[in-house]
């Protein structure tokens, strides 16, 4: 059985209003454990919308998203949040770190919702910082980091709760060539860790990577 199954998914913005817009029009997709999927498409094709539905940030207008057999788009907020906290690690184009906190506090922020002991938390922190290659900046303030470092911090945060699914929305759009290549290295590590990764991008750097299991092209809210 697939880990993620998406069925005839629609997302209509501003439904019933004059500005009504169909961002997703009947998406079907299934992803197995450990698969890496790259969704490609021009800006405005609906990639971000799709990822935000998979992460239960918002709810679809119709259709289903089953993850581990559960329709996550019908979950009440408390369960949706718990799902997000435990199973999803999200890497954003604009990093979305909390200004004014240190790298460590940012990385640990998903863990404040757990009641784990200090030892376990520290162990998880070390692992995540290590995977994302940012342990040397542990106590720095976010404001003092470069773009690449910010992203690695965001990656560490996405990994800290050991989620099974990692979503990345335009992960290289704000990075230079060198840091973009570093991201590909991390992507390879994800593959080794057997995580599901879905990358939404229009960056050609992701083309024809040997460890990617599936490429899908998106246009006008549909796969082509």
């Amino acid at each position: 059985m697939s880990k993620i199954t998406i069925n005839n998914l629609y997302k209509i913005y501003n439904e019933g209003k004059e500005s009504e817009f169909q961002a997703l029009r009947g998406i079907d997709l299934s992803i197995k454990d450990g698969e890496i999927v790259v969704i490609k498409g021009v800006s405005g094709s609906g990639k971000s919308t799709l990822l935000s539905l998979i992460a239960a940030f918002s709810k679809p207008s119709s259709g289903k998203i089953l993850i581990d057999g559960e329709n996550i788009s019908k979950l009440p907020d408390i369960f949706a949040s718990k799902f997000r906290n435990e199973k999803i690690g999200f890497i954003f184009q604009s990093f979305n770190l909390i200004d004014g906190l240190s790298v460590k506090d940012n990385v640990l922020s998903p863990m404040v919702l757990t009641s784990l002991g200090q030892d376990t938390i520290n162990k998880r922190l070390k692992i995540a910082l290590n995977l994302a290659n940012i342990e040397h900046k542990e106590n720095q303030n976010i404001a003092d980091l470069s773009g690449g470092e910010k992203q690695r911090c965001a990656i560490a945060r996405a990994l800290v709760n050991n989620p099974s699914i990692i979503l990345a929305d335009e992960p290289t759009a704000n990075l230079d060539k060198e840091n973009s290549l570093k991201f590909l290295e991390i992507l390879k590590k994800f593959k080794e860790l057997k995580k599901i990764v879905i990358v939404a991008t229009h960056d050609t750097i992701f083309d024809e990577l040997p460890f990617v299991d599936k490429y899908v092209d998106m246009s006008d809210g549909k796969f082509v």
Partner: protein
Amino acid sequence: MSVFLLDSLVVFLFIEFVILLLNSINQVIVLKILKYWDFNASNTFQYSLEKKNYLVNTIITFTIGVKIILFIFFVKSLDDLVPLVPGAMCATGVIGANEYGNILLLFKIFILFLLGVWMIINRLDLKSKELKFLKKKYYLFTIVFIMICIEFILELAYFINIPLTVPVFCCSVVFVVENLPFDLTTLDIVYIFYFIFVSILASNYYKKISISFILNILFLFVSYYSVTYFFGTYVYEEPNHKCPFCFLQADYYYVGYLIWSTLFVGIFFGISPYIVYSIVEIKNKKLLQYNSIILTVFTVICSSYVLFYYIKNGVFL
């Protein structure tokens, strides 16, 4: 001179009013949710109702906390009124100063009970992935809201009608043995008290929620009489001082708060499983354990006054 100028009453009524206002906002939302809630719909309107659901929960949870604090404050404020009400020596005289006082007190306790039940159902509701009990909990809240409105009116009626010139009765007059129900003697009541207490422990042990429910209600009444007419006299160490309020004062180390709160909280855990079951059909047997533990604390506190008196003086009162 008006009691409304008493600073604790000004504060009390102000906060009661704030709570009433918050809950009125709440009730408007609740009615909307009751009318339009459809868990299976996937439109924005349904999602906005779901979000509002959290606002309502927040306000009610806040209300519960404040109501508990205000209840204690209310009882303390009655003491403030004692010097103003002629003839009153303790809160008995003040609360009995007109026909609204005792009803108001019962109302307050009842509202707290219902809010407690609401809280339990709310927890069950939030634990279910379909928000199964949402409508039921809001029907229950609607009842509570109506009661809160009546309570506020009762409060005004009570305070307006507190006599400042005509003397009121005090505890020595109100609580005389002839007032016991069914011609029982004080000693009968005490035997019944211990008998029911042991029965509750047994019923809780076998997790019979409906039997525990009935026994707890009986125990509430029997305890009221036992504490007022029997255990209280040992707290005061005076055979003729029978009063459920005097031991709330500093002279008795505020032990009254401990006695009454253990009784009420204990009883709450005894009767709520059955009420919750009859509303949402879930048996919450763990609460019966709390019932046993807290009522045991209550009984031990009461009994120890008798015991220590006997050890000290070698006789009973």
